[in-house]
């Protein structure tokens, strides 16, 4: 296991060096997206008003408030990624996103896109919203405001993480490995339990 501190947006080289199980923190640009954001983009054909190339995207529906025309954070947490699998290969292939951040992981189609284009899935510690919220320095822009809390958010972050490289750009998927390992151990555990 290696530890990396990166600056976002990421280069392909930044991402290719990461291996499943590594720990990453980063500074810089982070986009917030969710189900509706991606339905709006992919199913309803709206082009994002900002380039996502090289950027990381986190699966979130942030709690924010608007004070004198400026957005302030209340609580920013992360949601389960798996239900957004459908959009993720295009997010990587078509828009050049280099990291998707969430919990629970993505599936085979995304893993292939990550291998082909040089992207990773970074697992955040679910339930630790207090930490995430603190690491967000600014909400620089909310695009497609009518979709809030599932709009497109541009955050600036500092020391964001720790994030675990759960799916890398070399075809490894930690969730899958851990699951296969658990299933391999299961017969032995059944035997010990006498079931």
């Amino acid at each position: 296991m290696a530890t990396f501190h990166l600056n976002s947006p990421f280069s392909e080289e930044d991402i290719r060096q990461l291996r499943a199980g590594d720990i990453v923190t980063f500074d810089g640009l982070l986009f917030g997206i969710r189900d509706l954001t991606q339905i709006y983009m992919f199913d309803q054909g709206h082009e994002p008003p900002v380039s996502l190339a090289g950027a990381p995207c986190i699966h979130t529906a942030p709690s924010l408030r608007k004070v004198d025309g400026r957005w302030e954070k209340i609580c920013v947490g992360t949601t389960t990624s798996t239900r957004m699998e459908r959009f993720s290969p295009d997010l990587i292939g078509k828009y050049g996103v280099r990291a998707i951040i969430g919990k629970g992981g993505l599936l085979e189609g995304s893993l292939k896109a990550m291998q082909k284009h040089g992207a990773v899935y970074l697992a955040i510690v679910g339930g630790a919203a207090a930490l995430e919220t603190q690491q967000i320095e600014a909400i620089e822009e909310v695009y497609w405001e009518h979709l809030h809390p599932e709009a497109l958010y541009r955050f600036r972050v500092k020391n964001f993480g720790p994030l675990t490289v759960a799916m890398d750009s070399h075809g490894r998927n930690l969730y899958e490995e851990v699951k296969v390992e658990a299933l391999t151990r299961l017969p032995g555990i059944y035997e010990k339990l006498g079931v």
Partner: protein
Amino acid sequence: MRQFDYSIVEEAAKQLYIRALCDLPPDVRQALRKAQARETNPTAKAVFEAMFKAIDIADREKTLICQDTGLPIYKVKIGSGFAWDGFAIKSRLHEGAKRATQEFPFRSSSTHPLTRVNPQTSVGPGLPVIYFDFAGDTDTLDILMAPKGSGSENMSRMQMFYPAHGIKALKKFVLDTVVESGANPCPPGVIGVGIGGTADLVMKLAKDAIMRPVGSRNPDPQVAAMEEELEEAINATGRGPMGLGGDVSTLGVHIETAYTHITQNPVAVNTQCWPARRSRAVISPDGAVAYGY
């Protein structure tokens, strides 16, 4: 007798929701610390680090640990020595949960099941979930509160086995349910298990189980042994914190039981997340409120 001032219950219901979301019980902290100490997987160790940082920030800044404010659950236990008006208690709990949401303020996670309209109050028909129980030997109104997030609640499973399936079917069911739930319930949390009763009671038992202090054991030695055995089995799967691999997949298995039908053998699993959130208020007849967990 002087009339009891039920606004005390409303204020306690409000404080309990906020406290549960922001202040993790000491037994949960201790269980997480112990878990981190015995964890050998370096990636998993980093995951625990992040959990402690989130707990610290929530302590310092009085903020929510997790963004999912959950569905509010209040378990009320009324002592024989406490003169009470059940309707007043119910209404005040409802009002308190709503005020917590609007006055803190935090997001309401509660919505209409069909229209999906969320009135941003955390309450509505059926919510908060309220259970009443009684104690013969106290004169207090004891309220235990837990906000239940969806990631872990969605992993709830129940099965009506037959007596012929035996105890081993129950054990296998618990283990398989946990293995299947993977990273979804933000492990390592508490695995609550209900055994016996009716279809509805068995899930209530599992819910009672997750609301016990982490590390407590069922007083029945046979049940306690089963808790230990299942804990070991679940940790042996190696799924680890957040399902990313490691030695600790659960902080503890808690089992609650009830008598059941001679032809039935029901089991239920209710999972709790690593932030196993709960809070408690004990209200005396003179209106004094003692907060705890």
